């Protein structure tokens, strides 16, 4: 027997006022707390200074928090005000696009973007072009071909060469294992320029050592918990694995937990990417062997400095490499 749902009535007169009151209260409270706490939301710099916006992939990844910090310091020095925004999830390109559209509406002076999707970012770059706002790409390249096809242009790319970083990691593993061993790889989300480049570089380096074999290469979508699960599964299938390259530190850190759980701590060479503080700790403890340092803070700083230059009418380089190094 189906029980009918309980009674439900509408009460016409009261809802509007209450809802309205609620909306007002919320917003006032919010903007209030926003003004009281400028550093939290990233609006630094003098009040009437030109505004630079930095849109990263997400703010729950230490790499981007580092980048934000660098950008904020640079903004203070350069005398520009800075807005930092990000989607909730690293892969939410559509949301990132919305944020950028809204910032275009807000008429910011320059946009520094770390694209969540290399191709998907193209339409909104074109929009910024139309609004006359210069776009600086940071860390992850936009898809050059798609950009050219859409007639869009960017002011500069500031970042490290991920391909070189991958190679660096591969060479380190080859050397550490003495040129012989079974290697596993944790990939990022497929189709991301960053991850793809790191992977290509890494494979290149491994190919040069004939004694090394990549026995498993699986995506763990940049995430720590997935790094744990996926590597645990890999260990089940390939207990012989003695080295792991994870395309970022979060996945590497997840994997170290899986290694500990399997009782193999220290017996597998784990190399990550990004050199996050926690990864550096892990290297000190010996649960990780190395990580590729990307200097996110430097990237953020250079991006803001370049944006400030553009706003002053100065010209900037089309590519500013940020050095890369292996932290052991």
């Amino acid at each position, binding site marked *: *027997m*189906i029980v*009918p*749902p*309980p*009674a*439900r*009535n*509408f*009460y*016409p007169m*009261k*809802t*509007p*006022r*209450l*809802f*309205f009151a*609620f*909306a*007002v209260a*919320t*917003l*006032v409270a*919010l*903007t209030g*707390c*926003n003004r009281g706490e400028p550093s*939290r*939301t*990233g*609006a630094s710099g003098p009040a009437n200074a030109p505004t630079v916006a930095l849109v990263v992939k*997400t*703010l729950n990844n230490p790499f981007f928090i580092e980048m934000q910090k660098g950008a904020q310091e640079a903004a203070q020095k350069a005398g520009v005000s800075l807005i930092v*925004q990000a*989607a*909730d*999830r690293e*892969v*939410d*390109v*559509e949301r990132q*696009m*919305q*944020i950028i*559209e*809204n910032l275009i*509406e*807000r*008429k910011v002076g320059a946009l520094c973007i770390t694209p969540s*999707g290399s*191709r*998907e970012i*193209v*339409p909104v770059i074109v929009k910024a072009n139309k609004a006359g706002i210069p776009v600086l790409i940071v860390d992850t390249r936009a898809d050059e071909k*798609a950009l050219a096809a*859409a007639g869009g242009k960017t002011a500069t790319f500031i970042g490290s060469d991920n391909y070189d970083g991958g190679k660096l990691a591969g060479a380190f593993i080859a050397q550490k294992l003495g040129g012989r061993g079974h290697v596993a790889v944790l990939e990022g*989300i*497929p*189709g991301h320029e960053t991850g793809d480049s790191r992977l290509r570089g890494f494979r290149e380096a491994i190919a040069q050592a004939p004694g090394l074999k990549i026995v498993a290469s699986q995506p763990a979508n940049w995430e720590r918990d997935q790094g744990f699960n996926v590597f645990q599964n890999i260990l089940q299938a390939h207990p012989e694995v003695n080295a792991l390259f994870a395309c970022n530190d979060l996945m590497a850190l997840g994997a170290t937990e899986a290694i500990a759980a399997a009782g193999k701590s220290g017996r597998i060479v784990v190399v990550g990417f990004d050199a996050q503080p926690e990864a550096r700790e892990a290297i000190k403890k010996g649960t990780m062997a190395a990580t590729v340092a990307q200097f996110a803070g430097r990237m953020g700083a250079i991006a803001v400095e370049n944006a400030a230059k553009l706003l002053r009418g100065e010209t900037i380089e089309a590519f500013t490499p940020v050095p890369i190094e292996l932290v052991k």
Partner: protein
Amino acid sequence: MDAPPDLQANRGSRREKAGGEVPPGSSSLVTSAASGTTRGGAPRGTAFLAHYARQFGTLAGLVGLSVVLWILTPHFLTVSNLLNVAQQTSINAVIAVGLTFVIISGGIDLSVGSLVAFAGVVLATLLQRGVPVPIALLAGLLTGFGCGVVNGLLITMGRLPPFIATLGMMSVARGGALLFTDGRPVSGFGPGFRWLATGEVLFVPVPILVMVAVYAMAHFVLRRTRFGRYVFAIGGNPEAALLSGVPVRFHQTMVYGLSGFLSAMAAMLLTARLNSAQPIAGINYELDAIAATVIGGTSLMGGQGSVMGTLIGALIMGVLRNGLNLLNVSSFIQQLVIGAVIIVAVLIDMALKQRRR
């Protein structure tokens, strides 16, 4: 029919003529009732008000929010920003229409986000291979519809709870999309297709037109057609609907088909907007769509709701996100605010209903 003669004669006279009063001694059932003792038939206006009261409440919320944003930032109330918000809302809004139908019918559809990805990659792959745009669009829409119908059949014929059936489809469609594309985004379409995102008709961007058209049609279908009437009846009491001769299973199945179809339409808009289809697109979109539906006053118990409420609900979410961006509120606080709005909107709704009781 070989019905007895006077009943047939009666049939003729029982065809409804002018409504309202029944003259004494006519074919009225109870002659003593002929004076028509309906206590004060409510005027149309009141009924209309009562009917749309909840939407007015939500609308007032939207207006209030807009006024606040207008006061707080000069960038909010500009034509280009409003068009911007409407465009940003269109994808969630189109998905939420389908979900509104499903929820009114007493069900739930968790697979919409995954269907956006699946239909999107099917569409994009066809476009990439040079299939003419109309055919690719049709194929995408049919993919969504087909998956929705499968949901419906699992629920009506397989007797699975909607939650379970669509939860399964959520994972199947996601897996399908990843498998289909090898996990990589699909892009590289002709310029004709992108018109869906960049085109304008009389200065109005196409996604907004699509959204408006979908809502106008959905509203009409829900309020003015047999299909809509049956959806309400099924959601209100499936057993009574069945015993009243309503083809319950067919309509339930179609409701899920419609939801899949509209997810595919959203996929169309999303793919054009990003100029690329990602197999990982649409994650959590079902939650946004449910939120818009619920803020819009549709009851998760089924049997009651409106698409116009859902549109306003979707716009509230869009305006809120836009406004919080314009005000440069941190993304962490944004999540918190949106969650709070959902909870408070429903709390107010429930509190008011309680008081009535």
